[in-house]
């Protein structure tokens, strides 16, 4: 059963240095507040998993907490590059970043295999691409019925998955709606599941397109209003596109980034 906890305690308990951590949310419901708490607590040597690293991982990478990134598209959506990500890959600053790079279809199926507790998933993918040359998590299998060769991707099973949702009830059942991306799979693939929510409600009202994660499939729930900002929570907020655009000059410059980090993360407490 999920405990309802503070962000500080939940992150300290569930996320550990050296962990493989997935923080999912496809543009929508990205768990920024939890990432900021990881930065404040200096939890490091992380292997991060995410289809679209987005600004959230640019921040963690720039903070020097990440040793490896498993991903499929690393840009600032609608804006351009993730400069902290590029600086780490191209220049090893502030530390070298190992990559395990996939296509979206491959990453989605790695989570599906993880949630299904299968060691791999099968897809029509990667054919003719150079991607498999650079990873040991893409291979092939032969269909035992037709003889056709297909791509196989290795399951991903994070130590902990962090997601943001709109609501939980007091028992820790979680409800999210709108674009729900790959969150169900990412959560069910993990050993521990931390969910930040916009609010705790007395009774969940299932919504169209909504998915419910029952309390017994969640480790901890943390109320964090606006915890997805500058991403958004459908029904609660809109995407702060200005922030995504403002991130470009901040992240281009190491000093500007470090100033931003100090002022906006380290000097702010997680007391919400």
């Amino acid at each position, binding site marked *: 059963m999920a405990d309802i906890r503070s962000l500080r305690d939940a992150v300290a308990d569930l996320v550990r240095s050296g962990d493989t951590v997935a923080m999912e949310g*496809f*543009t*929508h419901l990205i768990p920024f507040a939890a990432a900021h708490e990881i930065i404040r607590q200096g939890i490091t040597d992380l292997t991060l998993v995410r*289809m*679209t690293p987005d600004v959230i991982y640019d921040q963690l990478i720039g903070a020097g907490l990440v040793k490896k990134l498993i*991903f*499929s*598209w*690393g*840009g600032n*959506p*609608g*804006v351009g*590059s*993730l400069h902290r*990500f*590029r600086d780490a*890959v*191209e*220049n090893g600053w502030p530390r070298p970043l190992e990559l395990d*790079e*996939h*296509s*979206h*279809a491959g990453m*989605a*199926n790695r*989570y*599906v295999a993880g949630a299904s507790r299968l060691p791999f998933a099968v*897809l*029509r*993918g*990667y*054919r*003719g*691409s*150079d*991607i498999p040359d650079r990873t040991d998590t893409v291979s092939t299998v032969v269909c035992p019925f037709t003889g*056709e*060769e297909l791509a196989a991707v290795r399951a991903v099973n994070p130590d902990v998955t962090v997601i943001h949702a709109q609501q939980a009830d007091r028992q820790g059942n979680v409800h999210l709606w*709108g*674009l*729900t*991306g*790959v969150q*169900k*799979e990412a959560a069910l693939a993990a050993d521990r599941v931390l969910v930040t929510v916009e609010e705790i409600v007395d009774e969940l009202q299932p919504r169209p*397109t909504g998915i419910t994660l029952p309390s017994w499939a969640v480790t901890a729930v943390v109320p964090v209003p606006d915890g997805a900002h500058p991403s*958004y929570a*459908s029904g609660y907020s*809109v*995407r702060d*596109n*200005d922030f*995504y*655009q403002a991130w470009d000059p901040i992240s281009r410059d190491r000093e500007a980034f470090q100033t931003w980090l100090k002022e906006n993360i380290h000097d702010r407490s997680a007391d919400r």
Partner: protein
Amino acid sequence: MTTDWTPDELMTVNAARALAGAGTCFVGIGLPSTAANLARRTHNPDLVLIYESGTLGSKPTRLPLSIGDGELAETADAVVSVPEIFNYWLQAGRIDVGFLGAAQVDRYANINTSVIDRGPDRPEGRLPGAGGAPEIAANCGRVLMVLRHSTRNFVRKLDFTTTVGHGSGPGDRARLGLRGAGPTAVLTDLGILRPDPDTAELVLTDLHPGVTVEQVREATGWELTAAPEPAVTEPPTPEELAALRALKAAGRNAA
């Protein structure tokens, strides 16, 4: 020639026109999304837009900045999970047209969006990566590409093959087991390239008004073949321009 449109507008309008007759389109963000939304606002109002964030039949009233903007979900006929969109809809071969951008493209319309070789003394330059492109190009009925024309983008040899267009020439798609026709047109700010039916090599078939074959060749990193008499694309109609500018303005205002 005095025009009241920009090369980018020419590119986008022609990219939108390339969706004539299409039923369903898997839309990449950026230029492809602009073109696909313009098509819906002009000649193809029934075009079904599919975004990799999991929306089937999105009908946004403004240009989404990102692939997961709320309006894509709110206006969709159906919202599904990301694994589902890739497995049940894209991989299953249900989508007519895949619409992609690219960082580098070669003469066989193969795409690199992963890394750039910056020479022996410098580390590789990092691009965003594959995203949905490899499987979009593999599994849609046909593929359209839209990108600005320069020798930086149109290269003799890709530094990395992220996504296969026509491989190393005719028959390669079939050999690799890729579905569909692959790239059928590359829309740029200078004109339109299409694969030669016999060689699968991209050929300059259309010039935008006021552009010369020589200009296009100069912006292309390989010895570009041009059709004997390239067509000249129709100038944007006032309706097309108005619709495009309204879309873009609405997108900016919403941001």
